[in-house]
């Protein structure tokens, strides 16, 4: 494994301080803030009526009327900043075959529902843009990206998470270049939620200052990322080199940070350990610093406990006084503008600062004016609702005196083998212990109505108002833990990767319904925290005290396999020894409205709900701890259908997967595929006929269609099957019409509604 060194070779920004990076940086240098009176909706009923909106933005300056219909504000902002970043990076087509996108967002397509003032009889054109994978997919399609495309939904840490995920894609050779960042547009219902939580400041925010409160903002920033040697090889302009990143979960509270900052501490520890950099060389930290009473001192405490005495010499600032809190775009805007400042030998400041608040006095804050410094290494940190944290460690290439940016000591370290040692599913056709195989032979007709109450399953795991998605997911997670770790000593230091395309729309109905019923100034504070899609992952982490690497994502169909991918890489890279990976779906009226808008109601599959979790572990640890090893994870392949040739896209995923797994087609004994049967039917029929020798089946016609969880459900079926003896396998596979002998290696294939494809190989 090469040393982790990813170069930033392009930056694009659209912020409240400017419609490009030059304008944004010039205004930062002038100590300007983008926070002003809210223009996009009537904010007069709130405790604050200011926010950092993009100034003078006219969609028609950039997009045709048709484009304005297909791209919501969030997508538009992203497209403009990606254009700027790509224009600068000038990626040459001949070296770059595969470009992917990692898209961070907190609000996703929420504007599309807000505009409709209701939750039923929705307009399909608008509603189509609601699901949280839609912005990333639309943007990927617009730029013809063909590599891994993923939306990270870890709320206010989403774009930091996206940058980290993109680095992993490059490090493991899944893409030649990645575009990573985040975008969020101003949302009246999100503003109403922060108002209900009394988190808003009536003056422009100034983190660490004695006046509490945050200011909301909007904007977008994206980076072009490439492996450092490639960037050096083509003599690209390099802004920084990313050496490591860490993710963690507080497992503490849905909105408030762990008061001692332990969550952010874990993320920093992970980032610095991956980079292998001595603490003394880290000389600047761009903090999350929202300005709320709870966030600021907790974050500083966490950092203080990591750096000890040395912390007082490290420059620290939060950029939120310039840009407000840009939620899913926050990390990317703050990271990108830190690079612009460093290029000029400066550090971003926290402006409007008067005097430090209690608990924030000892930090070496950069206040009111940019400070001339050239740190060696620096951290950019973000934290989120749901308890997710992200920390990115980077080398400042403008450091003076110049130190080498290329670590020539790029020795090969061993990568861990990853095994699957537990599973559990909550679904209409799963049995009590979470197995799904037993129903293969007993059910030939679909049974899709799920009746599962977490309260009845285990009251201790339940909390009031817990939405069905979270109940199913906690149930499945518990089953997977029982099936693998059981009551063996397992520490809090395990990872959790979770995929959900829509989150809990029942909670969204409650929250948005409270605004429709009671008015925007009386929004439901108790349902607002569930509006972020990572809230389910956050609740799972809290229930099981899982504090390690933690991420949540959406893709509209490949979510489950993506969780497998990200969990596997986390173990391979030595960040965790054990990772729980899961996905889940929940049925609701609003969800059916969205199905209609996406044409999923035209599928012959019945839509269903449920959740699956698998336990992944480092093989050595699994053996050491005496865990059952059901199967090995062999490899992955990702491809996005940007050229409207879905068959080719599926083929690309398969061939990339086989290459990654070091297998050939003849090694594959069976294929399970999870498809939606609307946009991809012909492709799978063709695939079946061309792979005539290999049995290929979907379970969706019997078990129903689960957008997020289907691919993981199929994975569990394959895992259960692989663990059996040949005779036992045949008893099961007869019901699928398969006639082959011992099954040793299987592929799981999955497509999303927008043509995002993934393949994964697993072996006995």
């Amino acid at each position, binding site marked *: 494994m090469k040393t982790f060194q990813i170069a930033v070779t392009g930056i694009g920004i659209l912020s409240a301080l400017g419609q490009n990076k030059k304008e944004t940086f010039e205004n930062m240098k002038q100590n300007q803030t983008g926070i002003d009176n809210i223009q996009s909706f009537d904010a007069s009923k709130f405790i604050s009526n200011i926010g950092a909106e993009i100034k003078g933005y006219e969609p028609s300056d950039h997009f045709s009327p048709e484009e304005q219909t297909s791209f919501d504000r969030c997508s538009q902002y992203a497209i403009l900043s990606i254009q700027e970043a790509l224009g600068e990076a000038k990626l040459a087509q001949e070296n770059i075959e595969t470009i992917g996108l990692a898209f961070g967002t907190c609000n996703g397509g929420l504007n599309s529902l807000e505009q409709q003032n209701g939750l039923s009889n929705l307009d399909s054109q608008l509603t189509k843009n609601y699901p949280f994978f839609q912005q990333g997919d639309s943007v990927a399609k617009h730029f013809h990206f063909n590599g891994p495309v993923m939306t990270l939904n870890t709320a206010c840490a989403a774009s930091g998470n996206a940058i980290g995920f993109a680095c992993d894609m490059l490090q493991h050779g899944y893409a030649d270049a990645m575009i990573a960042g985040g975008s969020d547009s101003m949302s009246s219902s999100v503003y109403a939620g922060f108002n209900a*939580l009394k988190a808003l400041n009536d003056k422009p925010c100034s983190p660490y200052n004695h006046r509490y409160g945050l200011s909301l903002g909007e904007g977008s920033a994206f980076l072009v990322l490439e492996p450092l040697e490639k960037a050096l090889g083509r003599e690209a302009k390099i802004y920084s080199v990313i050496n490591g990143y860490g993710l963690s979960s507080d497992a503490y509270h849905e909105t408030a940070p762990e008061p001692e900052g332990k969550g952010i501490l874990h993320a920093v520890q992970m980032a610095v350990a991956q980079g292998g950099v001595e603490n003394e060389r880290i000389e600047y930290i761009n903090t999350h610093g929202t300005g709320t009473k709870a966030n600021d001192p907790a974050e500083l405490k966490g950092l203080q406990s990591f750096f000890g005495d040395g912390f007082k010499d490290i420059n620290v600032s939060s950029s939120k006084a310039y840009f407000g809190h840009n939620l899913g775009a926050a990390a990317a805007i703050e990271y990108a503008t830190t690079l612009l400042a460093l290029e000029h030998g400066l550090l971003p400041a926290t402006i409007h600062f008067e005097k430090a608040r209690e608990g924030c006095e000892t930090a070496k804050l950069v206040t009111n004016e940019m400070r001339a410094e050239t740190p060696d290494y620096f951290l950019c940190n973000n934290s989120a609702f749901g308890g997710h944290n992200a920390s990115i460690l980077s080398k400042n290439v403008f450091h003076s005196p110049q130190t080498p940016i290329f670590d020539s000591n790029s020795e090969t370290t061993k990568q861990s083998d990853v095994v699957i040692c537990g599973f559990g599913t909550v679904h209409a056709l799963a049995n009590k212990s979470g197995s799904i195989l037993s129903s293969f032979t007993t059910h030939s007709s679909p049974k899709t109505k799920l009746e599962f109450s977490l309260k009845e399953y285990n009251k201790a795991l339940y909390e009031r*108002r817990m939405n069905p998605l979270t109940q199913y997911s906690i149930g499945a997670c518990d089953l997977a833990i029982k099936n693998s770790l059981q009551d063996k000593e397992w520490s809090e230091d395990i990872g959790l990767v979770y995929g959900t395309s829509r989150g809990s729309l029942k909670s969204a109905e409650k929250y948005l319904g409270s605004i429709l019923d009671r008015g925007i100034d009386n929004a439901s504070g*108790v349902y607002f925290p569930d509006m972020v899609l990572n809230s389910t992952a956050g609740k799972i982490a809290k229930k099981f005290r899982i504090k390690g690497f933690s991420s949540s994502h959406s893709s509209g169909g490949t979510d489950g396999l993506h969780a497998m991918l990200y969990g596997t890489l986390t173990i391979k890279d030595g960040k965790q020894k054990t990772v729980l990976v899961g996905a889940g779906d929940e049925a609701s009226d609003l969800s059916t409205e969205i199905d209609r808008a996406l044409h999923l109601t035209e599928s012959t599959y019945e839509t269903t709900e449920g959740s699956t979790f698998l336990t992944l572990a480092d093989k050595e640890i699994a053996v050491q701890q005496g865990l059952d090893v059901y199967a090995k994870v062999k490899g992955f392949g990702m491809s996005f259908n940007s050229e409207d040739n879905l068959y080719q896209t599926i083929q690309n995923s398969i061939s990339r997967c086989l290459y990654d797994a070091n297998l050939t087609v003849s090694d594959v004994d069976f294929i399970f595929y999870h498809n939606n049967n609307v946009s991809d039917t012909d492709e799978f029929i063709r695939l079946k006929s061309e792979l005539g020798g290999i049995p290929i089946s979907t379970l969706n016609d019997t078990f129903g269609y689960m957008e997020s969880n289907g691919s993981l459900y199929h994975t569990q079926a394959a895992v259960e099957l692989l663990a059996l003896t040949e005779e036992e396998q045949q008893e099961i596979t007869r019901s699928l019409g398969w006639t082959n002998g011992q099954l040793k290696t299987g592929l799981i294939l999955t497509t999303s509604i927008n043509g995002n494809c993934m393949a994964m190989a697993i072996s006995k």
Partner: protein
Amino acid sequence: MKTLNDIKEIIKVNILIERLELEDIEADEIEDDEPLFGDGLGLDSVEALDVVSGVEAEFGILLQVLEEEEIRQHFYSVATLSAFVEEQLKETVNS
């Protein structure tokens, strides 16, 4: 004019049971002196804010100016909260 008992009933039914969707509990099972937070009903900080909003919405009084300490004091139990609301409503009438 709402009596103290009316106020208590509104707090229990409209705010605690309906707005917060407290399950497995009926209004008459909530003791007037039982603490709303911690050991009693076990409400958390986010729910506390929703109770504040609920009181504002149900009784038309503005509480945004309250300091945290005052909230802690007045929102201790249904009894303290209803007494506080009654006081506030009287002030509204008098002024």
